[in-house]
């Protein structure tokens, strides 16, 4: 974000070992790429992954508490914090700037609550007001300062592309510079989860209960906000303002895929890592912004999740609807054949129909083809050449369908006071959903049940089976 041109760029010192050096060299040989390129890529992806894990873990709780906008707010106010520190000290040192950024995060959280309560504005509005004001303040201060160069690209996109290039010695190893902030951040995040798991979950789910059980929801809110502020500050160095995408999107995707909180946390981490990794690789390929593509990949993954999510996914819903329609078409064929048999001269023989007649009974179209296959695969229908006939089980099934249909007509007739021509259509819909239990209930409910309103006998499943 706020950058100075420093001359002391550290060159890889001689004799300082680089972790996984052997591995990356080997990989480079296998891919026939320059060793330094592979090493850079490896470390960049490692930084991205670390970033993603920190963001996803804390982001899950933002999403669940419905305060996702807070992540947005924190990332913007961080600029105000660093600018404020510059205003006071007149210098650009990393540690005070980090502290300033954190302080700004806290100010955002507190002021948001203040505006929310004092001005009686909805919480999202107050977040929007506070963070834009703070961000604007930061922009004004930075534009006034002559010696500081505000690199807009850096604010927006961070420096993920170069994160693997700047290796610095830490504890005798050469690792990316951003590890110095990201590793402690991850530790803090994991510590928060380990120590306050129970309290976090309780206050996120039911803050009222938490208070009556003697847990302070306010303390937990600020604790979480603090950790999110720390995460935002250290992740912004790498991915810029797009940290918001990493905070919220992997968590939102994970929420779509699971109903367990622990699984959601693990999944969100994996999804976050996949976003940064794929984003970076695409950026290499297209020579584009790594952070930008990370966010794009996150968005794309969300779309995929919306389609394939097991519970509410579009695909799942589509398949379930199609299955239901196939079953309904198939049952229509069975019921149609049964009625035809009823009308025929030999009610005891198994009625036959041509394939095209069955196709017409199912209503035509692709669904009907599927319906016929459904019937054949369940051996409810038997096919001999182009002639179809009901099997024994098919006959039982069909009788039950017609019984449901006529019971429903009788039930409507008795309870709804409808004209006779209004009875068939609703029964045609409902017959597919009336199981043996409801059949029994309706039978008990009806005053007389031998005939339907049109004077046709209601087939009795049990007696027919015995005979």
């Amino acid at each position, binding site marked *: 974000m706020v950058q100075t041109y420093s001359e002391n760029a550290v060159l890889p010192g001689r004799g300082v070992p680089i972790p996984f050096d052997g591995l990356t060299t080997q990989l480079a040989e296998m891919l026939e790429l320059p060793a330094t390129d592979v090493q850079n890529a490896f470390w960049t992806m490692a930084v991205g992954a670390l970033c993603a894990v920190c963001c996803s873990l804390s982001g899950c709780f933002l999403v*669940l508490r*419905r305060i996702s906008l807070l992540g947005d707010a924190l990332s913007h106010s961080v600029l105000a914090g660093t600018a404020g520190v510059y205003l006071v000290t007149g210098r650009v040192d990393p540690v005070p700037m980090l502290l300033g950024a954190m302080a700004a995060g806290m100010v955002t959280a507190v002021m948001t609550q203040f505006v929310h309560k004092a001005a009686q504005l909805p919480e999202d509005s107050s977040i929007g007001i506070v963070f834009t004001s703070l961000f604007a303040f930061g922009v004004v201060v930075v534009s006034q300062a002559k010696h500081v160069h505000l690199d807009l690209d850096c604010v927006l996109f961070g420096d993920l592309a170069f994160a693997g290039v700047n290796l610095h010695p830490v504890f005798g190893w050469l690792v990316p510079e951003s590890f110095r902030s990201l590793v402690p951040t991850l530790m803090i995040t994991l510590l928060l989860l380990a*120590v306050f*798991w*129970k*309290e976090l*979950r*309780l206050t*996120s*789910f*039911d803050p*009222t*209960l938490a*208070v*009556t*059980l*003697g*847990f302070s929801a306010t303390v937990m809110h600020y604790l979480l906000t603090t950790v999110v502020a720390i995460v935002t500050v250290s992740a912004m160095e790498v991915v810029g303002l797009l940290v918001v995408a990493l905070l919220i999107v992997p968590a939102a995707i994970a*929420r779509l895929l*699971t*109903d*367990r*909180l622990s699984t*959601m946390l693990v999944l969100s981490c994996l999804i976050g890592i996949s976003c940064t990794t794929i984003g970076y690789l695409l950026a290499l390929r297209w020579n584009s912004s790594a952070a930008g593509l990370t966010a794009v990949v996150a968005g794309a993954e969300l779309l995929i999740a919306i389609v394939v999510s097991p519970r509410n996914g579009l695909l799942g819903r589509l398949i379930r609807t199609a299955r239901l329609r196939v079953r309904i078409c198939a049952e229509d064929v069975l019921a149609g054949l049964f009625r035809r048999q009823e009308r025929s001269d030999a009610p005891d023989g198994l009625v036959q129909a041509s394939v095209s007649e069955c196709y017409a009974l199912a209503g035509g179209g692709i669904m009907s083809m599927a319906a016929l296959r459904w019937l054949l695969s369940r051996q409810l229908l038997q096919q001999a050449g182009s002639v179809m006939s009901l099997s024994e089980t098919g006959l039982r099934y069909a009788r039950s369908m017609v019984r449901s249909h006529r019971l429903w007509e009788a039930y409507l007739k008795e309870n709804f006071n409808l004209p006779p021509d209004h009875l068939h259509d609703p029964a045609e819909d409902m017959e597919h959903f009336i199981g043996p239990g409801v059949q029994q209930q309706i039978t008990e409910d009806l005053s007389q049940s031998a005939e339907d309103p049109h004077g046709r006998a209601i087939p009795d499943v049990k007696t027919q089976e015995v005979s």
Partner: protein
Amino acid sequence: MTESAENTNSAIFDIHDMTVAYDRRPVLWNIDLTLRNPGLVAIVGPNGAGKSTMIRAAMGLVPMVSGAVRAWGAPISSQLTRIGYVPQRGSVDWDFPISVFETVLMGTYGSLGWFRRPGGVQRDLTMQCLERVGMQDFAQRQIGQLSGGQQQRVFLARALAQQAELYFMDEPMAGVDAATERVVFKLLQSLSDEGRTIVVVHHDLRTVSEYFDEVVLLNVRIVTSGPVATTFTPANLQATYGGRLSILDTMADAVQKQVETE
């Protein structure tokens, strides 16, 4: 110590001169309520009478303008571990990724305090509570997959897991079918038989005499309270439901106006 003070101290639950205001506008006026005997207590009154507000204020969830709430002779804030609060069903996000078992387990958190994790004892207790409300088969379900009545039973199981001596329940019967309502009342009855006190915000006047021992008639003030047999009379109901005291409304407007113009 005077005799009346002694009586108050021995009471299970005592609200003394409680006034609650939203934005300075009083919504509950000078509430005085003392419960001495364990049992089932219904809080009854029209919409907007402040029934939920009264128990929320008593639990410290809504600030009071004035007054004091004591339980077993001590300030209620020091007795929270002995008291269970069952909020309205709509108060939580039922889409939250949490199972029925984990939800009920939260009832035991109060006895654990900060940092301590639930162990075998708490898990066993949770399972027992689920069995008591007939929800043991749903333990691993996500709470959003339950019907309204089942969600209510989960809330009750969670309250059971608190093992409290005094319960406040905010409309546990709202939006549940008749079968669930009977299950709920059987449960409340058995809690009462164990010597606990259950204060229920209740909407359905028809079932008050059938299920409750005592009744509190409330309409922004306490109209009257006492045993159902002597208190739940047509005259008292008329006084409760027969419109707000118009002077109280005028006063509430006046107080609010004063605040706004000053």
